[in-house]
């Protein structure tokens, strides 16, 4: 009887795990973020604008600076990175991808320090919402710079057709949310900042 119950629990666990991996999008618990929020870019594609407008639509106040440096972070608690390289964007900013990688690294290093000092206070999220157009060599450098070091990855499925983000998430133990539509980013933000959104 007891053995049977154990087996049942085991089976339920196995089933839960396998179902969990199939529908991981629904199963991932979205961490809550604290204010103030920063929206920045990793790779200088304009996708950070999408995150900014959705956050604004939810009534959230965000600081938006695609080129912010570590010294300008101030009291930021949550960073939303829009991941994706754009040669045009980098050119306009007058930087190359190595400068961008360095800027990102310094920000992430600082956030790691802060997280250690005050656990639970800080959150870093990586969004890849540009689909196929934000893949390729240049984007890969931004993806590699940010994705393995975030607390949550949010990815539009068009950009994950080869399972790149699934692999990164698995290898680094990062929760991953796959979106069918870019607009669903809004639902993620709504849950992440639920305590600050007035209904």
């Amino acid at each position, binding site marked *: 009887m007891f053995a049977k119950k154990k087996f049942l629990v085991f089976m339920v666990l196995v089933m839960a795990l396998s179902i969990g991996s199939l529908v991981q999008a629904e199963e991932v618990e979205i961490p809550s973020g604290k204010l103030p929020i920063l929206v920045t870019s990793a790779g200088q594609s304009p996708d950070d604008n999408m995150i900014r407008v959705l956050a604004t639509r939810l009534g959230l106040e965000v600081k938006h600076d695609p080129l912010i440096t570590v010294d300008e972070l101030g009291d930021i608690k949550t960073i939303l990175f829009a991941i994706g390289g754009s040669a*045009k964007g980098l050119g306009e900013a007058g930087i190359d991808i190595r400068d961008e990688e360095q800027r990102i690294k310094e920000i992430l290093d600082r956030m790691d320090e802060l997280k250690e000092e005050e656990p639970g206070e800080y959150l870093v999220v990586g969004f890849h919402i540009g689909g196929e157009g934000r893949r390729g060599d240049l984007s890969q450098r931004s993806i590699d710079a940010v994705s393995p070091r975030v607390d949550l990855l949010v990815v539009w499925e068009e950009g994950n057709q080869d399972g790149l983000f699934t692999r990164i998430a698995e290898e680094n133990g990062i929760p991953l949310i796959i979106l069918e539509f870019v607009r669903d980013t809004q639902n993620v933000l709504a849950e992440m900042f639920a305590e600050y959104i007035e209904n």
Partner: protein
Amino acid sequence: MAKTNGSKNLISTAVIIIVLLVVVLVGRAEFSKPYELCKIVEGPGVTKTGYLSDYFDGLKGTPGDTKLYFLEGEEPGGTLLVFGGLHPNEPAGLLAAVVLIENTQVDVGRVIVIPHTNASAFTYTEPMQASPPFFEIETEWGSRTFRYGSRLTSPLHQYPDPQAYVHPSGMLLSGGEVRNLNRVFPGRPDGLLTEQIAWGLMELIWQEDVDMVIDIHEARPINPVVNCIMAHPDIIDIASFAIMDLGADYGVPIRLEPSPERLRGITHREIGDHSDALAVILESPNPAMDALRGPTNADLVVYGQDEFFKRASEAGLIRVPYFEGDREGFPIDRRVGRHTTTVMVLTRTYNEFHFDKPIEFHGVPTKDDIIENGLGHYFLRP
């Protein structure tokens, strides 16, 4: 004897003259054929037409003048201006403009559509590109013929090119770009023909107090800037929302591209900077203008199927999907539908931000409508 010889000479001279005349007349007719642009029907929503030279008379009587179609609502509101055929080798722009002219019914505000924005560049095909001069779209009552033109103003209308082109901002470009209407904005009233066309379009925007400009283009599938909206910073919020709605509600997955600040002369950048209008460029993939293509003919323009793009797509070399569901290639109906849907959604999103000057219309087919009923269904009989 001498007399017969004389009349014989007279007859052969007459025959030679007649033959020469026929050759000259037929040749001339054949040569000037390209100047005839495709016929466009004034749809039920068209309230008046005009010419660009009405706004800048420097264009009067030149090959740069072009026809404007006004679709006005009963209620006053904002004004949307649509450019098709600014680059006539990007045919989805022309066709989307024609679909708008022949189908749109404006309820509030106005829509102004220019199908042949660079009329001169419609008069020839680019040398060495083997582009078809014409292509046909099947309709329920027969086929409708359209011109496939060139990227640049005709060298017959603007010649010679300088060694280098100095844009009014001081930016230096290669000489040929002085015939590229998408490099010379805002133009110069006393400049070369292409610059005068740009100036005429700016005058139209200023004089008609245009609120939003949508400039419809196509790009090489291998170009990273394809399948996208390129937005001036002033319209980036509207474009962002529109893109998300297009993906979620209309199955049109496109992305946002930055507007280059340093590359001057591009329509949306200069229009946004030099007027109150919000301006975007739309880009869809056109395989007929890409060096990767195989045989270049009207079928490639219309059906967009090409073995080389298929292989490039499989190898991950292009960023636009070659298949959409089980539909292969980059067929023009899909490209036109993508543009008409984008015009619709951008306008709807614009209204959310600018409720004081709304633009409302109906009758514009979406991509799904066009795929279901065929593109030809939305062309009226000339």
